[in-house]
């Protein structure tokens, strides 16, 4: 065998990792179909593809979480069979999952310790944690408890945990989906550094511009098959997208004119203390949303968006009924089912475990929010045909790709489950739709479909409230944008006036009033 210990990794003549005809079958469905992939040391390799193309399945196979049905893996030229992630880690393969696996009530160091296989003492480990995190410019305080940390900081824990195993090969599954642009930039610096150290990185993302900036090679999957490997820097975002989808992506087009009608969702001076000690106190929130309008709520995650969603949906009840008015009816004290009967619909941010019960079928998950109104329940009995029909309609309208007609929610790819959840609510023809992160982890083509559906819903007369981390998305579809900061909601700006700078200031907590006044004095 080649002497791998003395040779500098980037001069090696074999790829670090290869998948050879890798195939993964779920029943008769091919999630991965004979995929050949070579990843070399000192390379940032992008893995692109539509929702359900098989990206996560492929990297899970590389990390030993999924057993290939056919074909296999080679590591430094040698055949490699993994029966579990600990074996992958032992070889030097690290992975950062899209959904974090952290315990909220434990400290950073404790969380890291739980994810390591080594035998070092807790003290040694904490010291090494601090040293690794400092040397990569990913500052972390080992003694902080996770609940106090932002999403970006939480992801840092996952990355540092992976780096502490000193991996030769690092997999990142949609790491920037939840990051602010600034946090993403910081991440790219770290990734460049890891690359310069000779490590290989396999990088999954739906954000094509960042792929073009960062990655050296891109492999594109479509329907479980590899369609090409190319140099992303030589492509445009549009040409990459075309390869992923096979056709051109439709542009979102807002209806020429929308009729603004009656107030459909009104919040009057809502104050709500948090339910758990880790939450945000909502203070003095007021707004009015009329039929035909889309209001965007921007803000860094963790500034009260979740609490506002819970208050609007009725998962948290307000003491004073008048604080939330849906379709002209005081609803602050009404349960979520009663609010649904008034014509409201809700899409939460977390799709597994909140928006759906992961281990239940899609038809049962259609029933989860559909039972309150409509014909899914008759005299206490479930009308199975109606629930299946709801699944079929969402599947057709939003092109949900799945292995069979009615699978468990957890078996859908992230983006496809998101399409199902959004579709499930939109197809109920709500008068008010409150939606969080509508296109979180959804590919460009599907994101356009979802945004178009929101615009069409508003055009049909509904009031739509969208919370998103993605400013471009808010600017693309909203009529007005407001910002949440420390549990307060700013006054809304017409989108035409909402420049990125102004929104950035508001998101950082400064008030626009002084500027606005100055502006007013000018004119």
């Amino acid at each position, binding site marked *: 065998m080649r002497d791998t210990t003395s040779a500098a990794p980037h001069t090696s003549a074999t790829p670090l990792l290869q998948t050879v005809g890798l195939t993964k079958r779920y029943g008769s469905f091919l999630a991965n179909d004979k995929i050949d992939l070579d990843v070399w040391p000192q390379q940032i390799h992008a893995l692109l593809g539509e929702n359900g193309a098989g990206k996560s399945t492929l990297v899970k196979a590389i990390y030993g979480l999924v057993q290939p049905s056919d074909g296999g893996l080679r*590591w430094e030229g040698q055949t490699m069979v993994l029966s579990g992630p600990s074996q992958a880690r032992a070889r030097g393969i690290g992975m950062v999952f899209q959904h974090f696996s952290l315990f909220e009530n434990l400290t950073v160091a404790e969380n890291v310790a739980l994810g390591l296989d080594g035998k070092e003492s807790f003290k040694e480990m904490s010291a090494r944690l601090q040293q690794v995190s400092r040397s990569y410019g990913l500052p972390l305080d080992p003694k902080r408890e996770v609940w106090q940390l932002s999403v970006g900081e939480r992801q840092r824990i996952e990355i540092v945990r992976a780096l502490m195993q000193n991996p030769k090969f690092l997999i990142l599954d949609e790491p920037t989906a939840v990051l602010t642009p600034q946090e993403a930039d910081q991440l790219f610096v770290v990734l460049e550094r890891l690359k310069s150290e000779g490590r290989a990185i396999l990088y999954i993302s739906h954000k094509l511009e960042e792929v073009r900036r960062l990655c050296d090679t891109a492999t594109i999957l479509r329907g479980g098959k590899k369609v090409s490997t190319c140099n992303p820097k030589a492509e445009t975002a549009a040409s990459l997208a075309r390869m992923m989808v096979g056709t051109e992506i439709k542009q979102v087009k807002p209806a020429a004119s929308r009729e603004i009608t009656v107030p459909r969702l009104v919040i009057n001076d809502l104050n709500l203390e948090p339910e758990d000690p880790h939450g945000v106190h909502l203070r003095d929130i007021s707004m009015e949303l009329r039929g035909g309008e889309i209001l965007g709520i921007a803000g860094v995650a963790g500034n009260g968006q979740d609490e506002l969603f819970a208050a609007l949906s009725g998962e948290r009840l307000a003491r004073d009924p008048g604080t939330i008015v849906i379709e002209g009816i005081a609803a602050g004290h009404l349960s979520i089912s009663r609010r649904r009967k008034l014509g409201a619909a809700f899409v939460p941010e977390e799709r597994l*475990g909140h928006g759906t*019960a992961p*281990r239940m079928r899609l038809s049962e998950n259609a029933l989860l929010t559909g*039972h309150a109104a409509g014909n899914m329940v008759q005299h206490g009995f479930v009308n199975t045909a109606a629930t299946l029909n709801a699944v079929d309609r969402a599947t057709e309208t939003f092109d949900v790709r799945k292995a069979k007609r009615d699978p468990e929610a957890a078996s859908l790819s992230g983006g496809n489950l998101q399409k199902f959840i959004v579709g499930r609510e939109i197809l109920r023809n709500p008068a008010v739709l409150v939606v969080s992160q509508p296109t979180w982890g959804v590919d460009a083509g599907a994101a356009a479909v979802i945004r178009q559906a929101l615009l069409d819903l508003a055009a049909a007369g509904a009031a739509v409230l969208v919370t998103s981390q993605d400013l471009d998305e808010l600017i693309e579809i909203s009529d007005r944008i407001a910002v949440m900061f420390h549990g307060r909601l700013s006054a809304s700006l017409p989108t035409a006036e909402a420049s990125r700078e102004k929104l950035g200031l508001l998101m950082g907590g400064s008030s626009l009033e002084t500027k606005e006044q100055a502006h007013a004095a000018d004119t």
Partner: protein
Amino acid sequence: MQLILEKRAERSKTVALASPLIAIGLTIVTMTILFMVLGKNPISALYVYFIVPLADGYSLQEIAVKATPLVMIAIGLSLCYLANAWNIGAEGQFLMGAVAGSWIAVKTQGTGAGHWVLPAMLLLGALAGALYALIPAICKVRFGASEILTSLMLVYVVDLLLDYLVRGPWRDPQGFNFPTTAEFDPVATVPTLIEGGRLHLGSILALVVVAAGAVLLGKTIKGFEIRVVGAAPRAARFGGFNANQLILLTFAISGALSGLAGIIEVAGPVGHLQPGISPGYGFTAIIVAFLGRLNPIGILIAGLFLALTFIGGEQAQITMKIPLDVTKVFQGILLFYVLACDSLILYRFRIVSSSPQVARGAH
């Protein structure tokens, strides 16, 4: 080398079906060893336990009679467990149903009361069981008290109440000072199905309960609520399902079924109220519920199987002088293996070498 428990990537369907069978197999292996330690021939012991009771009509009836309370109680318990509400006190609810129903029997004794007596007893037994089960449920919902502890402790309360009643106010004056009520009147007795046999109407009721459980869980919105609230509490809340209400509901149903089983047992096979009317049906039913995978049909099969061990245990005591407590040991070991095998659906064992650096170095 080191044995570790590792999460499976995908939940294994085969193991899910095979798990109860594996558990039974492991239990039998353990029992074989135990019989050998006790100095009994394991082959003939197992034969007496599992085959002999199946061989004659009387024992078969007896199996159905024993399975009746087990299945009824376990159906109720499965609803609780699916909803993540841990009712451990079915034994107490069973006894409470027996006591409350017997009250009518005792009070109407010899008064020539009509055919309303038995239905009234069944209703009151179920109602009393439900109310008794609601005590821990309310404590849980209202004060956050652990329902596991409170429901279990209430078993001992009603046990003593029953003891007091049959030794004091309700004791049969002609009973030679035995702690028992008088034999119930015919109108207060559950009719048998076969002339001179042991099989009684309660077994039919148990089948109705199984069918009702299957319909409730599989076809109704309430059953769906129960399943979601246990499987994904946050999604259930998003769906508009009230977890506290469901705790109260499942405890009430479970208590009612236990109470019903209790009064049927007293008014049927036993025929009067006395201490020791239950060989631990309420506890054994917990095993039945899990062995049956919290599924009504599974519970029916598991109930019959555990009833078999009761009968087999009696046989073994008579013919081989194996202590009756061995049956309890058997049931305990079975529960242990059932729960252990269940974790294999989501986890698997793997042996790893103690050095984490397997990949390094030249091969």
